[in-house]
């Protein structure tokens, strides 16, 4: 338990992805079986307990100490698990610290009443970090900033093997994954991946470099499709098992019963999850209403009907089609989708073109209908096999040009890790009219990348030289008509938002240029954003 607790403790304060990978990899390489397997399951969300409710924990601690002192402590710390971990008045004579596997075995086997007695004994035996980890584990949800994908990437590094290889076998495995570790350490053969309904690691596209790539590519070698603005999914239906996965292999079947019901086939489809209405696809904002929900209501199913726009076929009636060239897969996909009797699954059409110039014109001015909502184009080599990961060459994404707006820097916040000595996170605003008729800046977004290291130094200096107020790690920067720093901000789209004062939220904003030359008073108006939003909605 100690090693696991110290791992969680470090992860909870580590921002850098690389540093997290080192911590995780070292743990998976060094912790014994089956503890490391249970740790992996806890991190990937495959081991969730609700053995102890917060109310029970609170009662247990208040039976041992003055509730007033506990109340003050909780007020100060603000997190129940952490407070209890710190204040727990341990009774002497506790047993040795439990191993993670002992805790897991007990939680899985024991009755609720027994578990509650065990918990107090464990809390007595552990130190503060151990108690914190135990309470996090028991109350469900570690929330330490590690995704299932990151945990799998770290475990793959134990081999090392590619993370896609771990993903390929993942859905045939069960905690505590003894067979996975045995394979990674060369003690046994690779576990079988033949579980019906399993996830296949996805193939990803490189971003195209217009200046370099087009000169070398023959348009006849490539198919073009629109890049749909939803989320990438894999829909699998095999031997009665139906599953919907995200591109990292997270199972989201429960959130989309309407889609699962439509998977009346035997095979595995690669496609885009969208809200599909009779008149075509809806915006990403509509799809967001359906994402990350624990439960789905009938009203939500009716208002935001989900479907799949299919663009690849990975398995067809029990045959793995991934080794076939794209042209052949496409032919089979068209027949496969054509045979389905559902309106929830349609086909992503091929956009014909003869020259790159012609395609560029279509990208600039998409035909009316769904393509007008697309994020850009996808290019796929007709002869490409379906290969996990992001190989260079077979597939490219060619995103539409971003929207641009000139905004004024209003607040700057200290960064994390490498950037902790820099003010690197910027809140920017555009002009709007106050009640009294004066021009005021309204914040419209936040960005923390898009600039070079050299530019970061210059902005950091600007922030320090023009600070007008400080709130902890945040500095308010002078921003008025006469003095202010203008950023050209690039973004992918706009959505209405009640959570933002401006009423709009930007998707994927970043700093595209620093306009040292531009007077702050000439930055854009909120009305400009509102016009852009109306255009996007009206398409």
């Amino acid at each position, binding site marked *: 338990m100690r090693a696991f607790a110290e791992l969680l403790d470090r992860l*909870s*304060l580590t921002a850098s992805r690389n540093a997290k990978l080192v*911590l995780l990899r070292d743990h998976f390489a060094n912790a014994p079986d089956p503890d490391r397997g249970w740790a992996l399951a806890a991190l990937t969300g495959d081991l969730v307990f609700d053995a102890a409710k917060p109310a029970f924990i609170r009662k247990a601690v208040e039976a041992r100490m*003055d509730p007033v002192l506990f109340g003050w*402590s909780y007020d100060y710390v603000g997190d129940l698990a952490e407070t209890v971990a*710190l204040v727990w008045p341990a009774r002497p004579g506790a047993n040795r610290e439990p191993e993670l596997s002992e805790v897991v075995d007990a939680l899985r086997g024991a009755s609720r009443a027994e578990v509650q007695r065990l918990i107090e004994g464990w809390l007595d035996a552990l130190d503060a970090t151990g108690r914190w980890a135990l309470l996090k584990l028991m109350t469900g949800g570690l929330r330490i900033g590690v995704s299932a994908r990151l945990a799998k990437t770290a475990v793959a590094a134990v081999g090392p093997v590619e993370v896609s290889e771990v993903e390929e076998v993942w859905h045939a495995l069960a905690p505590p994954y003894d067979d996975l570790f045995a394979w990674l350490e060369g003690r046994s053969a690779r576990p079988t991946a033949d579980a019906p309904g399993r996830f296949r690691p996805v193939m990803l596209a490189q971003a195209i470099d217009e200046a370099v790539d087009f000169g070398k590519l023959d348009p006849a070698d490539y198919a073009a499709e629109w890049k749909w603005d939803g989320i990438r999914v894999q829909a699998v239906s095999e031997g009665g098992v139906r599953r919907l996965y995200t591109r990292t292999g997270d199972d989201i079947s429960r959130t989309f019963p309407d889609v699962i019901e439509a998977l009346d086939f035997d095979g595995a489809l690669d496609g885009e999850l969208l809200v599909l209405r009779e008149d075509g696809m809806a915006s990403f904002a509509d799809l967001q209403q359906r994402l990350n929900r624990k439960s789905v209501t009938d009203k939500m199913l009716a208002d935001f009907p989900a479907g799949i726009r299919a663009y690849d076929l990975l398995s067809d009636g029990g045959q793995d089609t991934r080794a076939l060239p794209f042209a052949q897969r496409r032919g089979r996909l068209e027949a496969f989708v054509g045979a389905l009797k559902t309106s929830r699954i349609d086909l992503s059409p091929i956009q014909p073109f003869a020259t790159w110039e012609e395609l560029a014109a279509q990208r600039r001015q998409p035909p009316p209908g769904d393509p007008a909502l697309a994020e850009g184009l996808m290019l796929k080599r007709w002869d490409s096999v379906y290969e996990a990961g992001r190989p260079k060459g077979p597939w490219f994404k060619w995103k539409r040009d971003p929207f641009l707006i000139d905004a004024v820097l209003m607040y700057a916040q200290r960064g994390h890790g490498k950037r*902790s000595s820099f003010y690197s996170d910027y809140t920017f605003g555009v002009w709007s009219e106050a009640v009294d008729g004066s021009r005021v800046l309204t914040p419209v977004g936040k960005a923390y990348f898009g600039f070079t290291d050299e530019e970061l130094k210059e902005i950091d200096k600007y922030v320090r030289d023009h600070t007008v107020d400080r709130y902890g790690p945040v500095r308010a920067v002078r921003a008025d008509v006469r003095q202010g720093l203008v950023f050209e901000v690039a973004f992918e789209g706009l959505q209405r938002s009640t959570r933002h004062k401006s009423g709009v939220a930007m998707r994927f904003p970043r700093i595209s240029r620093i306009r040292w030359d531009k007077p702050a008073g000439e930055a854009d108006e909120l009305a400009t954003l509102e016009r852009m939003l109306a255009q996007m909605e009206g398409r």
Partner: protein
Amino acid sequence: MIRPEALLCPRPEGLYCAPGDFFVDPVRPVTRAVVTHGHADHARAGHGTVIATPQTLAIMAERYGADFAGSVQPVPYGQSVGRDGVDVTLVPAGHVLGSAQAVVAWKGLTMVVSGDYKRRRDPTCPPFEPVPCDVFISEATFGLPVFRHPDDGHEIAKLLRSVQQFPERSHLVGAYALGKAQRIIALLREAGWDRTIYVHGALDRLNHLYEKHGVALGPLAPATSTTKQDFAGQIIIAPPGALADRWSRRFPDPVLAFASGWMQVRARARQRGVELPLVISDHADWDELTATVDELRPGELWITHGREEALLRWAQLHDIKARALALVGYEDETED
């Protein structure tokens, strides 16, 4: 029996002893001051006469210059100085080099001003000595049951393990310039880290002073170098304020560590962008504060500064007469 308030009472300048005519740790210039230890909020410049341990006087001279007071009266540990029937004895407090409790005795009444103190071992200063007394006047910086400092050996091991796990990064440890920095260095030496430890310029003078007083710190070097990579795999000690300062940009992808009792609370570490909190404090934690009162069983407990309400509550529950003095001006181990 005399009322304790006749011997010591709170005044805006600090705790005042009327029969002996002196203040303890006054926050404004006064004629006669007893100074418990060298931290800036307890030891200020500009008093007429300062009575303190020789080490504390040396620290004050180092920080403020030789003319920091009109005159000084060094009182080594265990020795007393008397005036008008009031005896003041300085007894180790275990907080930092030279730190002392002021034991004030008059007409059979004994009052102990703890100053800042801790109960656990510290390789840089002698341990706290409990003195039986009628009134114990305690600090309460960490006077809340959430503050329970782990074993410092465990915290140092955490730092060394991280150095091993991230050999290409440097480890930048924030530590207060007086006491904490030297304690961290000494603890690292005890744990077997015998390589050069790099230090921020602001620590130089106090490091020398500690060494002059017999605290060996091993090989130290200024944290200046022409190439970033020289600091990969190294440990650097700096005052907390320097961690997020432009100064820290010279190090390769530093792991920010901070040695402080406040690091016990995760949100505090997160706020400061600390990746590796080291819960190492020079103050008594909750268990030490309460155990000390339990051990001394004074007639009364007075609390000078810190989170007094929780300690008051605890004293109430344990039938110990207690009062909070709510002295202002002591901000030891604050955020910056």
